[in-house]
């Protein structure tokens, strides 16, 4: 385990794993992250390469602890009650070699009334046979707010299996806004399984965006249970598949309490010989709850394409722009 105090930041030193850190920072940049942000003393940071913790930097009110496992890391992340974290907490996970297994077991405890944002970047730039498993337990306390944005960067080989699993509990009045984006590089195989429980007046928003090509596979399993009075939930999925890629989206929204309001919104664009399926399941156990869903699967709308062509884009450019914008 590595824990470094403010002003003594790990990043920027040159210890034995400096080369590995440099490779991770390159990958982090490719994943959309800003390596300079990781060097700021006021930014809480956790950097894990394979099963090696390269940096763990806590700040007042935000405690990051990480210990290596045989094939990954166990991390505990605690945000003290009523803490307002000014800068997003940066998490950087990755596997640099072409082969390897990384299992991240993460416990997130967001104290009541706290407000915090996490930016997680996961990079696997050289993956030929890599497995990345994420098992997260997230507890958002009463009136707390957690925004968790995870973005992946995979290489072009598709040799990667990504298996994120999250159990999320949002206490009364709490808010959890989560996004998962995998739109750069090949997906490989992605199997997500998220389950969220929302208490009274709580909010859960889950946004997933992915762009699959060649023989990539996407399987998304998502359940939001609106258990408390006036709980609100939104599941938004934007997936594009081309080549022979396959996408399957299974979302469940339960309205289990008076005033609960939930909505599932799925758009999947299919090109070439790709296939996409969406199975929304609406379950309502309280007569004063309301859950709705909408889904659109298929080709890009012709009028959208022609509008962009009328600005001078050719058809392929228009389709690509529409898809890129949708999954941005």
């Amino acid at each position, binding site marked *: 385990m590595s824990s470094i105090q403010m002003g003594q930041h790990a990043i920027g030193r040159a210890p034995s794993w400096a080369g590995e850190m440099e490779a991770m920072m390159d990958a982090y940049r490719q994943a959309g992250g800003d390596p300079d942000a990781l060097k700021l003393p006021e930014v809480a940071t956790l950097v894990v390469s394979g099963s090696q913790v390269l940096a763990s930097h806590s700040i007042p009110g935000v405690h990051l602890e990480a210990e290596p496992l045989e094939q990954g890391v166990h991390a505990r992340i605690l945000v003290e009650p009523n803490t307002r974290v000014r800068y997003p907490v940066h998490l950087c996970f990755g596997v640099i070699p072409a082969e390897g297994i990384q299992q991240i077991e993460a416990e997130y405890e967001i104290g009541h009334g706290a407000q915090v944002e996490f930016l997680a970047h996961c990079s696997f730039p050289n993956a030929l046979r890599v497995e990345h498993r994420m098992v997260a337990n997230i507890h958002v306390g009463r009136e707390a707010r957690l925004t968790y944005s995870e973005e992946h960067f995979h290489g072009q080989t598709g040799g990667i299996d990504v298996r994120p699993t999250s159990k999320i509990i949002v206490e009364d009045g709490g808010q959890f806004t989560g996004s998962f984006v995998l739109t750069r590089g090949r997906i490989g195989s992605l199997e997500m399984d998220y389950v969220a429980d929302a208490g009274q007046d709580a909010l859960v928003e889950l946004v997933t965006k992915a762009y699959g090509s060649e023989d990539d596979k996407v399987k998304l399993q998502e359940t939001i249970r609106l258990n408390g009075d006036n709980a609100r939930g939104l599941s938004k999925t*934007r997936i594009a598949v081309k080549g022979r890629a396959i996408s399957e989206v299974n979302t469940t929204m339960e309205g289990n309490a008076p005033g609960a309001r939930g909505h599932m919104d799925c758009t999947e664009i299919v090109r070439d010989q790709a296939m996409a399926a969406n199975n929304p399941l609406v379950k309502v156990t309280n007569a004063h709850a309301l859950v709705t869903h909408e889904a659109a699967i298929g080709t890009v709308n012709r009028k959208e394409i*022609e*509008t962009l*062509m*009328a*600005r*001078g884009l050719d058809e392929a450019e228009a389709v690509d722009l*529409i898809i890129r*914008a949708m999954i*941005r």
Partner: protein
Amino acid sequence: MDEPFLIIEDLSLRKSDRWILQNINLSFYPGKIHALLGLNGSGKSSLAYTIMGCEGYTPTTGRIILDGKDITHASITERARMGITLAWQEPVRFEGLPIGKYIGLGAGENNREKVIAALEAVSLPVKAYGYRPVDQTLSGGERKRVELAAVYAMQPRLAILDEPDSGIDALSVVDITRLIQKLANQGSAILLITHRPELIGVADEASLMCLGTIVFHGSPMDANRYYQTRCQTHLDTLGNQPWTPATLAGQSLDQERKTG
């Protein structure tokens, strides 16, 4: 008047065993505004899509000539790159596409200044709108303004504006009128499809369509008068509805029947 750069020559379009357009002849001149009037279903939008080259709107007969070159079968992209563009009556939304980027698509390289000028031309503050997506969060009126800004930024040779005033408030009509005049002053020819008298007033000439044909061509005032008092077909189709100012031009309906 200058020579026309774009000529629609004896254009007809047949879809599903029905003539949508028949024997349309029009000419477009740099900097001139041509208003196109007509009731719903008279073929105005179909003509717009045919000139733009939209899918399903390839002319059955006739030609579209640009600078002496037959572009009847050119793609939309080719036409756009030759300077023809269209603002749809009900513009589509693009999830995630920033307004600034959308407007800049047709404006060429180093288009930042053009994007800013286009947003200002439609009275949308750059700071508030430049990075907003062209999606459902925009009102109908805002979306129309964005569409016009995209056309304005292109500085096209021909801008086809399909009812740019529909679904927007009267104040916005003033902005739109100003924008159309600005476009024309910069040398763009404009095919302006509209029902509003105040917009018709900015046109240099006008045509009236009925059941896929042009039944009148002349000054905007005359075309509007003819439109308001209706031709025979309008009467047959709609009968005497309250809005008909039958004596608007000092003509009786019987006279209209004869001229229609």
